[in-house]
């Protein structure tokens, strides 16, 4: 068991998953607080279309992923705050993007495993270079969030008051969606486009049920995120060839369920 942890591809997997988990836990907290859960589900799927397009054009999928998620993220940041219109518009854009992804997938006659890797994640195929890129990008995102922390928090919880006090709410919301887009692009290598959402929402959803204070909630969220990915990788390694993303999704659901049902904060909200 411990020997397995010394194999280079396992080391890469654990490192990348840890970076992705920390970044996703932090930005996921803001995502949930802003009521953008649906966007968190839609962006990775839109990114899948970009990645499939990039594969078709013969360039690295990561570039397509970045282009599509950031484009869609900025779009979400700009469109109305009315939840009815927003969710529907996001849903339609997502479906269209997935249709495009299917078209690219059909046109691409080569090795389809790369496209599958994007949908389902390919945690054991992460190169040393990808680890470095993930580390640098994670550092950048965390730095940006740290700099924007106060205005971002203010505009998240009380947008009208923030606007009245001169906080650039619209700009922050566009910037925030760009942060989410980068987070998703990093996490897709670990979880796959279908399940990135789990890494983004799972730890933060449980954390916001446990503690009220934003700083504490973010710390709890990071702790949970790291625990899920480490345990998930461990269980996947122990089980043989079952997918890591399944274990991470199941762990985060099994922790969330009792917290949701027992948490006193649930009563307040109802």
């Amino acid at each position, binding site marked *: 068991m411990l020997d397995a942890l010394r194999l280079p591809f396992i080391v890469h997997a654990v490192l990348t998953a840890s970076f992705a988990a920390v970044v996703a836990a932090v930005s996921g907290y803001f995502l949930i607080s802003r009521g953008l859960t649906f966007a968190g589900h839609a962006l990775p799927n839109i990114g899948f279309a970009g990645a499939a397009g990039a594969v078709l054009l013969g360039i690295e999928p990561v570039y397509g992923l970045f282009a599509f998620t950031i484009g869609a993220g900025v779009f979400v940041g700009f469109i109305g705050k009315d*939840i009815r219109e927003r969710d529907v518009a996001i849903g*339609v854009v997502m*479906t269209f993007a997935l*249709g495009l992804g299917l*078209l690219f997938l059909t046109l691409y006659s080569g090795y389809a495993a790369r496209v599958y890797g994007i949908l389902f994640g390919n945690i054991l195929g992460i190169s040393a270079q990808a680890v470095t890129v993930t580390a640098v990008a994670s550092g950048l995102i965390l730095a940006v969030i740290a700099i924007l922390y106060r205005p971002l928090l203010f505009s998240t919880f009380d947008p009208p008051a923030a606007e009245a006090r001169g906080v650039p709410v619209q700009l922050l919301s566009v910037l925030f969606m760009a942060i989410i887009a980068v987070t998703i692009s990093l996490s897709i290598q670990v979880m796959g486009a279908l399940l990135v959402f789990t890494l983004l929402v799972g730890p933060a959803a449980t954390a916001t049920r446990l503690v009220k204070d934003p700083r504490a909630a973010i710390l709890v969220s990071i702790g949970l995120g790291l625990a899920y990915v480490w345990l998930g990788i461990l269980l996947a390694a122990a089980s043989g060839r079952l997918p890591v993303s399944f*274990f991470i*999704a199941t762990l985060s*659901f099994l922790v969330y369920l009792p917290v949701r049902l027992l948490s006193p904060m649930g009563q307040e909200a109802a």
Partner: protein
Amino acid sequence: MFGLLSSDVFQKALLGGTAAAALAAVVGCFLVLRVQAFAAEAFMDICFAGATGASLLGQSPLIGMIVFSLLSALGLGALGERARGRSVEIGMVLSFALGLGVLFLSIYTRTSARHSNAGVSILFGSILSVQPADLYRMLACGAVALLALAAVYRPLLFASIDPTSARARGVPVRALSVVFLLVLALAAAACTFVVGVLLASALLIAPAAAAAAVTIRPYRTILLSVAFGLFITWAGLLVSFAGPWRHPPIGFSISALAGLVYAVAAIAGRRGRPRRVPPRDLNREVRGSERSA
């Protein structure tokens, strides 16, 4: 053109697609009204787990989808009105369902080399390889769902638009929301079966959203939504079967047309009249719960 209509594959695709599109267009109107687009999304992912699970057991994916989504509808119904607008809870259910689906799929694709493309057909639809038995099951589901919807039409409309007044007037809001979830489960299974897990909202959400952008009258919205849904499906099938340029996959032509119809309707609706103000209390309730969740 006429040769196409007599082809067996096209006939089955047309029949299945029409049934799913009509059912989805009607259900979608209530979805848009009740702001449950995300719940619909969750049902599609639950169908993913159902379809892969059923494949693993050697059953038809459609049966797995129907069973899983009906069971989850009951589960979500147990949460009652709380499920409304609660995107975080829905998101957690959705991600668990996807995780299960990925697990089943990874086991299934490993059992035989012939199964390696099962993922694509479940995710992006398999209308061309539909079995007659599944087609009948789907038509039966559609009929049951539409009958149920017709039976509760008026109270459901009331409860969807203004739950507070409806409850005060003695309408069983909670029971209605469970009935609607069950209907939604059947509609999601039918759509997922035709266009796949990832593209089902092209039939379930886009036509109704486009109709709601153009008119606010309930009957007119439903009629328009059905018209949009049928247009999207028929034109999509036609483009993919008879169109030029390498016959794009059906999922792509349907979702592209759905996006187009919605974009045109949204722009036309915005120009045609001042922006609609949604019912105050409904809007506040949704936002309030989003914030605190």
